[in-house]
């Protein structure tokens, strides 16, 4: 994030805290897309992602007086959104699944295996689609680290700040995420799966 944005955020927050509630709209407009992207990737569901964005901004507004202006507002929002998504995962795990439906890895199985479809069906955006699906298929903790690092371009310390994990843990999660992604996205895997799809 640019320093200019941070300064702008600080001004806007001061304005809101001074009683101008409408000024918060500028922050919503600035960060809604990033929050939506994070929630969409972590929750894997469009409607839940929209709810998550709304909940995140409402929560941020209610707790705005507790925001530390020395830290980036963007990271604070990402942290609230990440915690909300973790709560949603926990809530999903508490809901009993019907017999014979779903597995322990349901949250990653929500998106089909990236290369499970034949190349012909993937269309011109196949590469983008494959990467998106491979990220979605990561286990939750690895997915958080990978999405924040590669899609949202955060440094390790910033990811640690967002997730509340030590930097060493973030490194480990990223390393494991890369290992899974490499296996999922490697050409041989793609070719085999593509051939299997064509044969079938």
């Amino acid at each position, binding site marked *: 994030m640019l320093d200019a944005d941070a300064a702008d955020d600080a001004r806007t927050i001061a304005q809101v*805290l001074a*009683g101008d*509630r409408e000024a*918060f*709209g500028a922050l*919503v*407009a600035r960060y*809604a*897309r*990033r929050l*939506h*992207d994070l929630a*969409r*990737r972590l929750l894997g569901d*469009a409607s839940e*992602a*929209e709810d998550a*964005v*709304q909940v995140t*901004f*409402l929560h941020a*507004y*209610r*707790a*705005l*007086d507790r925001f530390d202006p020395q830290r980036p507002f963007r990271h604070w929002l990402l942290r609230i959104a990440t915690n909300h998504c973790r709560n949603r995962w926990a809530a999903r795990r508490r809901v009993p699944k019907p017999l014979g439906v779903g597995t322990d890895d349901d949250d990653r199985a929500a998106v089909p295996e990236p290369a499970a479809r034949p190349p012909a069906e993937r269309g011109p955006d196949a*590469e*983008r689609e494959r*990467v*998106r699906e491979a*990220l979605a298929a990561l286990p939750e*903790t690895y997915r958080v680290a*990978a999405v924040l690092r*590669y*899609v949202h*371009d955060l440094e390790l310390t910033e990811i640690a700040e967002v997730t509340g*994990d*030590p930097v*060493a*843990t973030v*490194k*480990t*999660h990223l*390393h*494991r995420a*890369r*290992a899974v*992604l*490499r296996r999922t*996205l490697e050409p041989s895997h793609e070719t085999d799966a593509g051939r299997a799809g064509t044969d079938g």
Partner: protein
Amino acid sequence: MAPDLPPHDPLDDDADRDALEARLRAEPLWPLPVALVGRVTAALRAAGPAPWERPASEPALRLPRALRVAAAAVLVAAAGATAIGGIEPVSATAATVASAPVPEAVRDAWPVPPASLRAVSSPAVPTARDALVAGADAVPGGTGSLVVVGALALLTATWLGARRRRALGGR
């Protein structure tokens, strides 16, 4: 928390890593649903005032339940001690006043109370209060210990009530 990795991991130190990261970094953000910003803004407008927006004059005394119960018990004990302690000097003063010699002129000017009232208020006849005070004095520690026991009983009853409510799922 996941265990730390060794500082140098050959599996993660190849050209593949750069290629993989480049592929991941090329991933664009999901497009923002058109109506989402409007919906969030509307929800913010509809939401009640945030805690920091409420006027400072609004009462905001929030004590834990245990503290509230303790405060109530202290108040009850203080009230009990004041009531019991207050009876003694008042009755002593009344007895002093009653036994003091009254000037003739004043005594003649006062209306004479009926005989029944005089009989009841006579210090020579023991009243129900006298019996109560005598009973309290017989307890080890006197009236003070009764006040303390009463406060403890109130605390225990409140605590048991709170536990029961919690067990039933109430707040």
